[in-house]
């Protein structure tokens, strides 16, 4: 049985010419597996992630025919009930640690807060759990790092702190919204390997949102390709080469090969699917 069921999700923003749909009716279901969502910027993939947590900021508005998580109808949950689910059962790794970690709170306190919001624990136990979690995300000298502020640590370390923060209450589903886009290429693999191993070890579901096709193909079991607020392609990660939609084909064709014999990489020809 699927853990997450989403049917006909729409997210719209008001404009001078009436509401504009940015996400145009997305449906998906996710079990304890790794699902990748790929698309260019503005395709609505991040909004989809946030909508699942019901965290669309005003003036944005979301509608869905169905949004169920583990048998709970999220659409009918009050904000208070959502708060108990967020972090504890559904969590999200945000994009850039430079902006998404709180600038004037110590790293350890931020991680501890994620735990304290959901479990009543003694001070000493909280501290032990935080240190243990920092070790799990492979941070050396966790006691010292816990006392630092986000501006004192590197981007890669910041993202590992973010992962620690989001995984410490042991959620069932983790949404990773471009978790490595703000990081150096050399650090990207480390962070993704980490997410991958933690998710697999705990038997969690993962929704990896990215603009990088190859990356998603490597770390996910199944892939959704999004364009202009719609899902245009859904396939198993291994069958990406057999993609049928012209957008996906165009994206794949634009990826440089190891042995390249083309003088110029092809540019997406949008007229083939959008009709403009």
């Amino acid at each position, binding site marked *: 049985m699927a853990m997450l069921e989403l049917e006909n999700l729409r997210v719209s923003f008001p404009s001078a010419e009436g509401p504009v749909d940015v996400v145009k009716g997305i449906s998906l279901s996710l079990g304890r597996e790794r699902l990748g969502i790929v698309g260019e910027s503005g395709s609505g993939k991040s909004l989809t992630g946030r909508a699942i947590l019901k965290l669309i900021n005003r003036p944005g508005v979301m509608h869905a025919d169905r949004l169920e998580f583990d048998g709970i109808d999220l659409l009918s949950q009050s904000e208070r009930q959502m708060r108990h689910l967020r972090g504890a059962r559904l969590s*999200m790794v945000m994009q850039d640690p430079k902006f998404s970690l709180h600038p004037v709170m110590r790293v350890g306190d931020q991680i501890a807060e*994620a735990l304290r919001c959901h479990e009543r624990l003694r001070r000493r136990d909280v501290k032990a759990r935080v240190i243990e979690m920092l070790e799990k995300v492979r941070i050396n000298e966790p006691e010292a790092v816990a006392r630092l502020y986000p501006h004192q640590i590197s981007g890669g370390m910041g993202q590992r702190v973010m992962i620690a923060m*989001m995984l410490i209450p042991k959620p069932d589903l983790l949404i990773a919204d471009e978790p490595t886009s703000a990081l150096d290429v050399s650090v990207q693999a480390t962070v993704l390997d980490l997410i991958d191993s933690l998710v697999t070890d705990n038997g969690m579901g993962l929704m990896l949102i990215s603009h990088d096709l190859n990356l998603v193909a490597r770390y996910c079991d199944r892939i959704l390709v999004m364009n202009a607020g719609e899902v245009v392609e859904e396939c198993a990660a291994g069958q990406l080469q057999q993609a049928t939609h012209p957008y996906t084909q165009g994206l794949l064709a634009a990826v440089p090969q190891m042995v390249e014999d083309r003088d110029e990489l092809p540019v997406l020809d949008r007229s083939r699917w959008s009709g403009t």
Partner: protein
Amino acid sequence: MSSPTAKPPVPAGNVTTRSEARWLFISRKLLGFLFVVALTFLALLAVTFFIGRIIPIDPVLSIVGDRASNEVYEAARIAMGLDRPLPVQFFSYVGDVLSGDLGRSVSTNREVISDLARVFPATLEMATIGIIIGVLIGVPMGVFAASHQGSWVDHIIRMLALSGYAVPAFWLGLVGLALFYANLGWVAGPGRMDVYFEGLIEPVTGLLLVDSLLAGDTDVFWNAVSHIVLPALILGFFALAYIARMTRSFMLDQLSQEYITTARVKGVPGWRVLWVHAFLPIRVQLITVIGLSYAGLLEGSVMIETVFSWPGIGNYLTVALLNADMNAVLGATLVIGMVFIIINKLSDVLYGLLDPRSAR
């Protein structure tokens, strides 16, 4: 504080321990701080000194009168040391100020320094109560308005804040007096206390509320309270209007930050998102705003002090200006300048304490 990396043990015999090094660091910072304050103060003295020279009021004439003969005028000029070169005059001015000699006021015929010691606490008392009201009500109002952006509460708070700019102080003072003093009789009228209490309390701090409590005279204390309530509330309202407006816009900026979303993703309760995650980073900006409006109040609200016959520094400065009483004007300017320097430096220190990013 332990450093993240384990250092090899310091060889025995090396005298500087960690706590000593810390003290050395703190005292060095303190010295640098005092130096900067002294330098700023010197610049302030230079400004007041040159204002005194540039303003077309002849200090000699104001003493000898405009019917004095040329010989008398010259003699007075030399006696006042005005024939000496400007730098020499400046240094003797600095020396005078440092020894507490600000000259004699022509209009009150007393030492300016003792005048200031009387009028400044009156303003300080009212401004302090005003800023406390402004902060205690203005900050929560701003936070509330930001978290309910676009609601009717937000609109009411914005209207209130706007009226703080639009309504003239003297009008509010007069209407307040007419309503609460003349009609309802809830508060006492103008002045710091009723006439028959005058002179009962020996000034120690100059703050009437404090002095009357020190003397154990609760009658005077409550009388003084009923006198200060209305003007302090009006000052508080103006401070509140500004502080609430600024708090609201700082908070709105914070609430759109990514780390606020992070907090909500973690499942942090709403009040904690607001008062911890969003509020912690704006404390530094708020300190600037509060410090500036406190300094503004300490400058003395001329309107309020006039309407309420409040013997404060704003009133004193205005009377001195109208009488071309240069010593009093310069003395009061110096005090106001010092207030700004002190409040600025205090907020710098608070910055360092509150924001780990600026702490070095």
